[in-house]
């Protein structure tokens, strides 16, 4: 807690952001997010949208893996469910965008509930394998349920349209994705101040003790799976509107690993961790490309440095795990703590 933040009421005690400094910084963030599209070019807006989608999905996985302690490698497949739901609704029924996204979330949630069933019996690596199996089954469904998914060729999605405005550029999609992601992140942050969220944490810390405390494991584990998949489904829906083509190969296993890596690199079991992890995993390969681009090298150097970049990215991840096992959020927390007492203590 920040120095000088005396809590004088229960309301204050319960607030998510409790100091003026936090409010001020949040205002700065809001202004930055609002102003960003007017200064950024198409490339940066594209990356912003991609980061927003990845934050939404990573936050979902963080609920399951970071907070409830259930390892899942099925996040990409759940995103696939959301994406296919949105694509099919958009193509066949032409229902409104927000309804489609919600439907994508709910259908993915149903998928998550089914996949979550083994979680009562198996944990850790065994559960991870069970979720891989689920994603293989889902991949098969995506590829072979021709009447709904369009088989291997997939579905082409029309641009999202709200009140006659077509969301066909990154600039416009930014205004759709960033608020949705912000709401989802806020929802997750609030979740862990409720009975449900605390039950998740209790299950993570020791599930038998949690049961002794009166937490029904099946219900809460399934709920965690459901919520996580809902987040993935909505993120997948946004993905469908963003890339506008959904095929079975759009959501490979490596994508699930990407999200798990984002949760771990960012810091498991913290909201900020999921955000930082998603930003890191999405932006570092691009940042490395920019750095290589600035080096005064010939065009052939791009070719030589491409694999080097991949190695550097991998080394950075390993570096974080070794030197900062609590993730990026811990680095962030340390920076914040430094400034809490600044300039009185260096």
């Amino acid at each position, binding site marked *: 807690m920040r120095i000088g933040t005396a809590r004088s009421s229960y309301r204050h005690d319960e607030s998510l952001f409790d100091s003026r400094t936090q409010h001020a910084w949040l205002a700065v963030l809001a202004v930055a997010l609002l102003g960003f599209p007017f200064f950024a070019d198409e490339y940066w807006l594209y990356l912003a949208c991609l980061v927003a989608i990845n934050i939404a999905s990573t936050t979902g996985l963080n609920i399951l893996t970071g907070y409830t302690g259930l390892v899942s490698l099925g996040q990409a497949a759940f995103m696939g469910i959301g994406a296919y739901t949105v694509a099919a609704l958009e193509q066949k029924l032409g229902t409104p965008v927000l309804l489609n996204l919600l439907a994508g979330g709910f259908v993915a949630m149903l998928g998550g509930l089914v996949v979550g069933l083994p979680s009562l019996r198996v944990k850790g690596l065994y559960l991870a394998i069970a979720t891989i199996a689920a994603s293989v089954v889902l991949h098969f469904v995506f590829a072979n349920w021709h009447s709904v998914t369009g088989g*291997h060729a997939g579905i082409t999605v029309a641009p999202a349209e709200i009140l006659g405005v077509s969301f066909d550029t990154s600039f416009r999609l930014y205004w759709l994705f960033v608020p949705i992601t912000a709401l989802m992140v806020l929802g997750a942050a609030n979740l862990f101040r409720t009975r449900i969220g605390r039950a998740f944490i209790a299950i993570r810390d020791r599930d038998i003790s949690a049961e002794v405390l009166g937490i029904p494991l099946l219900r809460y584990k399934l709920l965690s799976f459901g919520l996580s998949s809902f987040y993935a489904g909505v993120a997948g829906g946004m993905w469908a509107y963003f890339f506008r083509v959904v095929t079975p190969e759009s959501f490979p296993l490596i994508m699930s690993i990407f999200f798990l890596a984002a949760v771990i690199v960012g810091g498991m079991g913290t909201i900020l961790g999921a955000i930082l992890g998603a930003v890191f995993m999405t932006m570092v390969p691009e940042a490395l490309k920019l750095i290589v681009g600035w080096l005064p090298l010939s065009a052939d150097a791009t070719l030589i440095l491409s*694999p080097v970049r991949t190695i550097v990215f991998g080394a950075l991840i390993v570096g974080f795990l070794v030197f900062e096992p609590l993730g990026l959020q811990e680095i962030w927390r340390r920076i914040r703590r430094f400034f809490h007492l600044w300039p009185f203590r260096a």
Partner: protein
Amino acid sequence: MRRTVLKSLLATAVLAATAGLPAAQAADKEIVIGGSIPMSGVFAFAGIGIHAGIQDYVKMTNDAGGIEGHMLRYVPEDSAYKVDQSVAAFKKITSQNKVNFYYGDSTAFSKTINPELDRAGSMIMSGASFATELNDPQKFPYQFIAGPDYTQQFGILLRYIAQQKPGAKVAFVYSDTEFGRDPIESSRGVAKELGLNVAIEIMTPPGAVDVSTEMAKLRRARADYTIFHGYILGPIPEFISQSRQLGLQTQFMGTFWTMDNSTVMQMGEAAEGFMGVMPYNYYYDDSASAPMLEKIRSMRTEYQNVPYIQGFLSAMLYAESARRTLAAGQEMSAANLKAALNSIENFDTGGLIGVPISIRGNTIPVGRIYRADVQAKRMVPASDWIVLE
């Protein structure tokens, strides 16, 4: 250590933040070729060749004075063969340059970026994909394939088979991927029209290693010809060696991505007699009708793979459509560039393709059958050039 990590993070952040500064605007008299090139990742073997091919053609053209006073500029980005990174590269290159031509790395990218191309209306695109779906000028008006699509590749193989052995029994073996399934359905009809009998269609799971079950099916079908599609190499050698052990009399064939000289030769002894379709002449073709390959050999003395030739030809076709557009005094818009591309009739590629080419629709429906000669470590022509109508 932590401070160092922090410092390097901060440096990365600052670099990333300042990268949005507007890049140098493209000069007016410049033709820009952008590219999402898979220089790393699973498709790097092709990306590296494609990159070198485009680079060499650009250099060659600029050394000769450019096109109607315009210099070519090639702006590549590594896509790692991932759609999100390919699109990021596209957005980055197109927001910082006035791009006229673009090279895409995959079918998924070609489909994803299509609405952007339609909306921009300022560039045309080709790429590493030979997907049949892209050969639809209505749906993909600003894209083309620098060769025959997969169905046309099958068509060329089937025509060759029909000539060699009328009424032959043919087997299709393909992977359970979008790439693998692509030509299968449409080729059934083609085979029937040519009087061939598709004895069996075998689909293998992606990355299959054990093919004994599939082999048993293939054996029962007793096909005269077996066409593989949707693979680069594996599990083709496994099929061939098992069939040799079983004494199966069938001629194995492949399509473009299997048919690079180095890929076929990786099969070792199993490669002997392996056949397939290739729309281009190989790097080492030294016939008098291929002066461009001679130039390539003088620039690069070591073997260049077929993706190199594909990249080189793509750049050549970009340049030709730009030349025709500029010569007609027209604006370099996507519609004009594509119309110029489609006006190409009996065009001499300098021997990259052994016959003059015409671009109807979105493809160049031409190819030749080659056979592997393991002793010489080369692919040798087994047919004349086959042009589909």
